[in-house]
């Protein structure tokens, strides 16, 4: 549990007057629930998109609302409202309270603030940055992609940011407030080759960073990289089908960990016994080259959290150490029910959603081989450089992830581009087949969004160059 200390009130007024928050907490407990929580969110989203080189639109949206949760044992009542007047909010809290069916005078709740460190690198709220500067960013990225190669004929460039302020208070007396800014610049493009061939490229990045981030992570570089991918894969041959040795390039390939193990370590699946990692704490579940960390404290990381959506501080958690399963990802409810403590992993998409255990930034600790050594050691295989999305079935552990840019490896050399490749495997088996881990630790540039049970949250992933033996490659080639 976070240490609750009386801290001086911040300069800004809370999102909702604290006496009202306390009243709502009491209302949530009024029928005998054991735990009550109020979550207030105000978010402003700005988006700019360019279509065929022209600014199609600029848009701004702003949404405010309150979610109230009441828990009795393993039972949860949840209600929310975007109507902020006191009567409507009290009705919302009373609806959540219906999960319990007694009566009780819960007495007053005294709130005290949880002091927080900061892992974000944002000075000025992104919502306050002039839209014209955001438009300029997108224009530059678009122009760079078009200028890169004349075969790049379609470019879609977009920028979006969100300034999200939250207040979480619960009947344990904890009160936490945070401002979570997030941005992303992205470019996708299509290159046209001979005989109607089309290849796509996508690149971008961002995070919980200041707008000045784009002075270093330049929009021109983003545009050029998207264009490079599309052009590089023109003339690709069909991906070979069947089991192979694959080498994953560093960065966004970390989606492998996210799918192959991350979801299976979320405590809701563990408690219900529906994950194949349930009951395996202390067991060897991966090659000893594999150390997996979920880290909500990465500076500026897309998944980083000063505080999670239940008011618990972000943490760095070692999930797998040298192949041995060390821990799971807990939210408040699942920690409570299994006698554990929250790992700061309780997240929700918005006030319209109840929190559940989620990943933050999930990465593989680096090894000691150079990327060159790793590729040179492969006689025949597949080098996977850029990746699309992935998915996992928690129970049987089957996961897939899409490879958007891949090359054959022949006698230790990266050769021809291949198309239409996809990897499929079973989490623990794939991790046991990890046979080399590079020294080139890397995080993705800030692109990831993870979906679970209808809720999406921003996440980060990371992986150094890694070799995995005997992975099934889905393709159509021989």
């Amino acid at each position: 549990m976070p240490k609750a200390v009386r801290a001086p009130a911040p300069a800004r007024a809370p999102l909702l007057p604290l006496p009202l928050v306390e009243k709502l907490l009491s209302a949530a407990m009024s029928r005998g629930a054991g735990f009550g929580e109020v979550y207030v969110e105000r978010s402003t989203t700005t988006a700019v998109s360019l279509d065929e080189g022209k600014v199609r639109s600029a848009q701004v949206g702003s949404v405010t609302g309150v979610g109230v949760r009441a828990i009795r044992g393993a039972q949860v009542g949840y209600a929310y409202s975007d109507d902020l007047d006191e009567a409507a909010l009290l009705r919302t809290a009373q609806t959540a309270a219906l999960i319990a069916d007694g009566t009780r005078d819960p007495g007053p709740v005294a709130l005290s603030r949880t002091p927080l460190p900061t892992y974000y690198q944002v000075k000025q709220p992104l919502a306050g940055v002039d839209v014209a500067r955001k438009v300029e960013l997108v224009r530059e990225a678009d122009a760079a992609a078009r200028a890169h190669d004349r075969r790049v004929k379609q470019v879609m460039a977009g920028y979006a940011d969100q300034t999200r302020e939250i207040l979480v208070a619960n009947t344990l007396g904890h009160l936490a407030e945070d401002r979570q800014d997030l941005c992303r610049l992205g470019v996708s493009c299509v290159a046209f080759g001979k005989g109607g061939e089309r290849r796509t490229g996508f690149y971008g990045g961002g995070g919980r960073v200041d707008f000045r981030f784009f002075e270093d992570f330049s929009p021109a570089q983003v545009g050029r990289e998207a264009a490079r991918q599309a052009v590089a894969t023109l003339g690709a041959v069909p991906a070979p089908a069947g089991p192979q040795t694959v080498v994953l390039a560093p960065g966004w390939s970390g989606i492998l960990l996210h799918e192959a193990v991350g979801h299976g370590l979320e405590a809701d699946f563990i408690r219900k016994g529906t994950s194949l990692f349930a009951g395996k704490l202390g067991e060897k579940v991966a090659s000893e080259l594999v150390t997996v960390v979920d880290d909500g404290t990465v500076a500026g990381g897309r998944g980083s959290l000063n505080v999670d959506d239940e008011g618990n501080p972000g943490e760095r958690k070692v999930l797998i150490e040298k192949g041995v399963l060390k821990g799971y990802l807990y939210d408040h409810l699942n920690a409570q029910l299994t006698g554990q403590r929250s790992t700061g992993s309780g997240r929700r998409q918005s006030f319209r959603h109840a929190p559940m255990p989620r990943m933050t930034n999930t990465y593989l600790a680096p090894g000691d081989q150079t990327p060159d050594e790793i590729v040179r050691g492969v006689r025949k295989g597949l080098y996977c450089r850029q990746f699309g999305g992935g998915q996992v079935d928690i129970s049987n552990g089957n996961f897939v992830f899409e490879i958007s840019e891949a090359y054959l490896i022949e006698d230790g050399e990266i050769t021809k581009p291949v198309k239409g490749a996809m990897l499929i495997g079973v989490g623990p088996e794939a991790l046991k087949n990890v046979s080399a881990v590079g020294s080139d630790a890397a995080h993705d540039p800030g692109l990831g969004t993870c979906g679970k049970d209808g809720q999406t949250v921003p996440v980060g992933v990371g992986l150094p160059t890694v070799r995995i033996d005997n992975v099934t490659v889905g393709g159509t080639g021989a």
Partner: protein
Amino acid sequence: MEAQVAATKAREERELSLLDVCEQLVRLAKKAGASDSEAYAERTRDSSVKVRDGNVEELQQATSKGVGLRVFSAGRLGFAYGTDFSKDGLRRLAQSAVSLAKGAAKDEFNQLPRGTQLGRAADGAYDPAIEDIDPAWKLRVARAAEGAAAQVDRRVRKFDSTGAGDFLSQSAIASSRGASAESRASYVYVYCSPVAEADGQLQTASWSDTRRRLSELQPPEEVGRIAAQRAARMLGARKVKTQKAAIIFEPQQAAGFIAGLAGAVNGDLVHKKSSFLAALLGKRIASEQVTLADDATLERGLATRPFDGEGVISQRTVVIDRGVLRNFLYDTYTARKAGARSTGSAARGWSTLPHVGTSNFVLEAGGKSADEIVRSTRRGLLVTAMLGSGANVVTGEYSRGANGLWIEDGQIAHAVQEVTVSGSLLDLLQAIDAVGDDLDLRSSTAAPTLRIAEAVISGS
């Protein structure tokens, strides 16, 4: 004092209908300098129950609302949205949209639909019986599903989740070009995801039913039983060798397969030559057994609506007629750009601009039963669940993770997992050699059982 002010404000909001909110915004936008504007608002009620071991696990109930305003100012587009329906809130929204338009490029195709294109109010997709469902009913239904699932097989003891819920929505649209309409919709659902366990293997499966009318909902016991049978039959699943063989998609997986085509017939992508179907209008792209239409007027369809996201009256658009590609889908903007007519295909929510999307995207039923299709298959994979997004509509490549049942000589031999199904979408569409008679509109994108004569299965 502050609370009192807030209460007055709330009363004032409640007196406004959604259409009033939209019309007020259109007036405010004009005042703020917009040459044209359109407001779209929604109010929803969402209520659900989850159960575990016969007890309530989660009870959720809430209403929410929002409005989006699209303005054109000298041919430039601006868009703003929000949840604050107070006078001040609406005024700020209008000013924000108009000021945002200044930063956008002038675009001659920016226009609103008008006149006879516009649809009128209708309540065809609304069942008042759903309005009256109480939490106790949902609890009973969810319990019944879970209870029935637990009776099927002793290896099915765990549950990922089981629940039931209902959803009501109202939407309204108003524009400076004469759009002024409201509609209501509702649906009710029940679902069950049990987990089967044996010899250290876990297999989850799920079954659900969603209907526009309460009286048409599948009995929850049936939902639970089907879900449990689907989980149990996957036990013992293993890889098969990499090979070419027949692929049979169960209706839900067939729907997933044709969902991949939805992006490819999006008029916007087609216009940008970024769809693999862009140059194939009027050409034979699929087996003669394939007829596919997007139909927002379909009775019982989950995406049936009187008008689309810009108020354009709903229609049926034949996309593929006996294998021949006949039409692409357009909203007003992309239609003008491509020199076509809107097909009433603007999808939107209050927080998004209208964009091309499908409504009820349905592949017509054929004449064979699913059973006959399986029995007449010498060697192949009956696909029952899939992983990944699959279709790349730009390149026309298809590759997706699959779970299912292996078929030898028309009989189910064993369960299969950890394989992928791959091919070019055009080859796969041409190779469809059987279409089932089991079309059921349980999702807005729907198809009957489909067999593809041959595709690549990657495994061991």
